[in-house]
């Protein structure tokens, strides 16, 4: 059904609009389209179209018949819901915090032939530090995943140290044995200049019409990059505009996790940490199989905050846990068939005007990009206002759990800040605190790591490189919801 003939589209409505909403939309549409007001050509036609649509949609019987015959449009296959930390905002004269958990799912089931093949560039760090076992395992993992790809999929392999080298360019046809021979020929030497590798990967991914693929750059590194961080971030922004996601995997303890987080989340991806190089295979396989389950290329969340609202933080909990920067436009990566997206927003609301009953915290919309059609879904964050109750209502369990885990993640971040401020004693106490909270959540082994790290901080006044990453990614992993909901709450 085309957009113009759909009755809901004529009134600019979603198919699950209420009777009241239909009436309101009709009045608005009529105001604009009435031939008395609108002197443009075709205004009369438009006006009659609106009349026709309203006549059907305002009559329950006719509406039911119409709905039955109507094919579900693509936007109706993506559903959203918002859970809030409390039922209402308080009418108080000081700022208050409210949490919102955003759920996004698609009701569409994955078909045998995916609409979107994948288009990936694997960017491998081959600096000297990768020598030996790491290199061997990396080669083995790369060889194996190349066999998992379909014919329609595109992939390329780029290696980099001080310079980038396109080992396997992005082609459709490929000779498996030749690819494997090339992978086997890899040797580790030189430094780590991530930008060189990323740029070459970006170039390979762009060789195709990116609208027809789920595009992704997978960066695997074990070292710090020096001096080209700014270039990497610019490239990530460009990639985000073209719906090219970036994921990063850090091996060992030398790489810069803050930097990798920034680059990957800018482009809707995330950073991962593995302790043992042998996990590289699972990582690659997992990343690729996730990409293959993509319903959309990319989702962008646009948030238009109302005056007096601050977006303090944004955390994506599903499909992968990652902190996102609280900006007006947030890249969420691709929507999966089998997993919802869950996003935790922390909002600070300044004192509210006295004469309102409901407060619109933010007017948001999701931009969902698919091969054939891209569409937007409106999403309003609003809450009624009530007087402050004596006993606050506890938030829904799902939200409580997420916020409790987020608090723990923040404790380790704070311990890092304490050390930067030259306060090892405070950091030590915070780590002890964190360990006891972890214990209470049944995270014994992570708690033990935190305890050991606390002792390390006491004697060395700094984190150990291994411990820092283990604790950061360990507490981050805890935020993954225990059971993944199949439907909206």
């Amino acid at each position, binding site marked *: 059904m085309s957009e113009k003939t759909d009755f809901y589209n004529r009134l600019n409505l979603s198919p699950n609009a209420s009777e009241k909403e239909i009436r309101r939309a009709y009045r608005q549409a009529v105001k604009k389209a009435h031939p008395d007001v609108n002197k443009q050509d075709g205004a009369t036609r438009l006006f009659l179209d609106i009349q026709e649509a309203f006549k059907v949609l305002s009559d329950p019987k006719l509406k039911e018949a119409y709905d039955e015959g109507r094919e579900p449009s693509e936007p109706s296959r993506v559903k959203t819901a918002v859970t809030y930390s409390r039922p209402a905002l308080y009418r108080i004269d000081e700022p208050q915090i409210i949490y919102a958990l955003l759920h996004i799912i698609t009701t569409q089931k994955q078909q045998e032939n995916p609409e979107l093949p994948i288009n990936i560039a694997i960017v491998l760090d081959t600096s000297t530090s990768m020598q030996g076992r790491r290199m061997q395992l990396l080669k083995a993992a790369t060889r194996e995943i190349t066999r998992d790809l379909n014919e329609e999929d595109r992939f390329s392999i780029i290696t980099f140290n001080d310079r980038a080298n396109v080992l396997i360019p992005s082609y459709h046809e490929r000779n498996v044995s030749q690819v494997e021979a090339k992978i086997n020929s890899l040797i580790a030497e030189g430094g780590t200049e991530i930008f060189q590798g990323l740029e070459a990967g970006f170039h390979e991914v762009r060789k195709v019409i990116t609208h027809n693929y789920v595009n992704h750059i997978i960066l695997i590194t074990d070292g710090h990059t020096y001096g080209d961080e700014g270039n990497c971030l610019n490239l990530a922004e460009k990639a985000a505009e073209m719906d090219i996601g970036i994921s990063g995997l850090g091996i060992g303890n030398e790489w810069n996790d803050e930097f990798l987080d920034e680059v990957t989340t800018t482009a809707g991806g995330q950073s991962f940490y593995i302790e043992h190089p042998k996990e590289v295979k699972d990582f690659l396989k997992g990343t690729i199989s996730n990409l293959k389950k993509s319903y959309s290329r990319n989702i962008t969340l646009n948030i238009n905050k109302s005056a007096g609202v601050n977006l303090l933080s944004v955390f994506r909990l599903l499909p992968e846990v990652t902190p996102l920067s609280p900006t007006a436009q947030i890249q969420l990566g691709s929507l999966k068939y089998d997993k919802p997206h869950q996003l935790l927003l922390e909002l600070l609301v300044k004192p509210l005007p006295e004469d309102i009953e409901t407060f619109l915290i933010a007017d948001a919309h999701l931009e969902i990009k698919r091969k054939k059609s891209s569409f937007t879904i409106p999403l309003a964050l609003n809450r009624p206002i009530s007087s402050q109750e004596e006993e606050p209502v506890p938030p829904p369990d799902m939200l409580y759990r997420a916020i409790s885990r987020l608090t723990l993640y923040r404790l380790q971040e704070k311990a890092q800040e304490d050390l930067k401020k030259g306060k090892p004693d405070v950091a030590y106490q915070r780590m002890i605190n964190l360990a006891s909270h972890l214990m*209470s*959540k049944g995270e014994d082994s992570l708690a033990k790591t935190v305890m050991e790290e606390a002792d390390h901080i006491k004697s060395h006044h700094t984190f150990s490189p291994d411990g820092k990453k283990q604790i950061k990614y360990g507490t981050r992993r805890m935020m993954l919801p225990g059971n993944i909901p199949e439907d909206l709450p």
Partner: protein
Amino acid sequence: MITCKVCKNQEYIGAIFCSECGSAFLAEHHLDDDTVVYPRKEGDPNYRDIPHPEKSIPKGKIALYLPDYETYLDLPEENEFTLGRLIEGQVITPEVDLDPYDGFENGISRLHATIRMNPKKNSIQVLDLGSANGTRVNGYEIPANSEVPLTHEDILTLGKLHLKVIIPEKYRS
């Protein structure tokens, strides 16, 4: 603003946890995963290895042995009692006074910690009442105002005073 009871940090209204110490602001929230179990820090302190003389303990009760004073503490009948240091003119008094055991020198607060026993559930817990010098279980500092379970031969340290927890064999789970 909300003031955290544990660390006195201030948070905005609507916050659910203290961002400084991680304590929950909503006291009663029953999630399954909120029981604190502390790891045993072997060998530290060494008090665990100090033998304690035999003592008959009433059914469903525990005993607290003071290794440094080679004596058992007199405990009340109740299933819940508070340990602290009794000072003249104090309004709320602890059930068990630790002043005779160098309470001041050992850094015991007036109301230091509470021990709770639940014979039905066969559980014993300690709760630090926000004491000045803290409470440790087997050498690990416990957060204030959260219940921490105790098991046989745990070393409970209030300030600098060590107590060995003795639980009758029948009730050790």
